[in-house]
C-alpha cells in the first residue's frame, strides 16, 4: 500500500526545495512589509450609529415576536373553543354549527338586555337620588382623568394636536 509519509519539514517554515524556499522567503517578506490597512476616519462614530440601528431593529423584532406570540395564543384559544364543535361539524355540517353559534349569541344578548332592563326598572325605587348624582359625577371624573392621560401620552410621543 502506498502510505503517505509525514513531511519532515511540517513544523519548519522552510522547504527542502531551494527554489520553493527562496520563493517563500519573498512571499513572507512581502506579507510582513505590507503593514496594516486602516479604515476611513470616524470608524468608532459609524460603529455607534450602527449599534443604535441594530438596537432599534432588535426592539422591533421583539415587538413583532410579542405580537406573534399573542396571535398564536389567540388562535390557540379559538381552536380550543372550535374543537368543542368538531363532532357536530362532522355530524351536522358547518351551516348547522354556525346557526347554533348565532342562536346562542342572540340568546345571550337577549338575556343580558332583559337583566339590565329589569335592573333599570327597579333601581329608581331602591336607590336614592343623591346616590345617582354621586355615581354620575364619579363616572364623569373618571372619563376626564382618562382623557387627560391619553392627551399626555400622545404629547409624549411628539404628536401635536394644537
Amino acid at each position, binding site marked *: 500500500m502506498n502510505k503517505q509519509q509525514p513531511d519532515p519539514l511540517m513544523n519548519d517554515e522552510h522547504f527542502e526545495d531551494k527554489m520553493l524556499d527562496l*520563493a*517563500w522567503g519573498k*512571499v513572507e517578506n512581502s*506579507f510582513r*512589509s505590507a503593514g496594516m*490597512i486602516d479604515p476611513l476616519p470616524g470608524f468608532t462614530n459609524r460603529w455607534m450609529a450602527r449599534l443604535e440601528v441594530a438596537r432599534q431593529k432588535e426592539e422591533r423584532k421583539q415587538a413583532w415576536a410579542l405580537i406573534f406570540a399573542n396571535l398564536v395564543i389567540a388562535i390557540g384559544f379559538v381552536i380550543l373553543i372550535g374543537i368543542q364543535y368538531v363532532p357536530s361539524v362532522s355530524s351536522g355540517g358547518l351551516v348547522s354549527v354556525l346557526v347554533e353559534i348565532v342562536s346562542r349569541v342572540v340568546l345571550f344578548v337577549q338575556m343580558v338586555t332583559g337583566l339590565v332592563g329589569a335592573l333599570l326598572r327597579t333601581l329608581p325605587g331602591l336607590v336614592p337620588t343623591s346616590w345617582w348624582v354621586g355615581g354620575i359625577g364619579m363616572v364623569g371624573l373618571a372619563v376626564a382623568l382618562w382623557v387627560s392621560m391619553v392627551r399626555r401620552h400622545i404629547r409624549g410621543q411628539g404628536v401635536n394636536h394644537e
Partner: protein
Amino acid sequence: MHSAEQDWLNRARKGDDLAFSNLVEAYHRPVYNLCYRMLGNAGDAEDAAQETFIRAYKGLHRYDSSRKFSTWLLSIASNYCIDQHRRKKLPTFSYDALETPNLPEKAMGMEAMMMQEEKQAQVSELLDKLGQKDKAAVVLRYWYDYSYDEIAESLSMSVSAVKSRLHRARKELAQEWIVSQESSMARKRTQYEQTTA
C-alpha cells in the same frame, strides 16, 4: 491586560456603550486589517469589522477574561469573514475591488504610493489563492505574529491542523510566486523582442 481596558470591559458588561466604544477605538485597526486581508475590498471589510464589534458587544458575557481580548475579537472577525465568504460566495479578487484602502504611509510621494498600491495588490492576489481558513491562519501568523496555539484557539481547530494548513498554504503561495515571476519574465522578454525586432 491594561487596567483601563479591564475597566472599559467591566463598564461595557453593565451596558455602557461609551466604555465599549473605547475598546472599538483601541482595536478597530487590527480588526479592520484582518477583515480587509480576508475579504479583499474596503467596503466588505468595513461592514465585517463593524459587525464584529456589534457581535462582540452583544456576546460580551461569553468573553472569558483569562483570554486576551484582542485574540477573542480577531477570532470573531475571522469566523465572521469565513461565514460571509461562504454565504455570499464573494467573487475572487479583482483589481477594481481595491478601491481606496487607507494605506499605512500617510504622506508618501506619488511613485511610492503607486508602488505601495502595487504591493498591496500583489499581496491580495496571493492571499486570494488560498481557502478562507488557510487565509485566516496565514494572516493571523504573518500580520499578528500569533503562535500556533493562538491560531488554533481563534479558528477552533487543533494545533496540528493549524500546522498542516500553514504548511500547505506556504507551499501554495511559494508555487504561486514562482509562476507569477515566470509569467512576468516571459512578458518582459516578449516586450523586449518586439521592441528590438
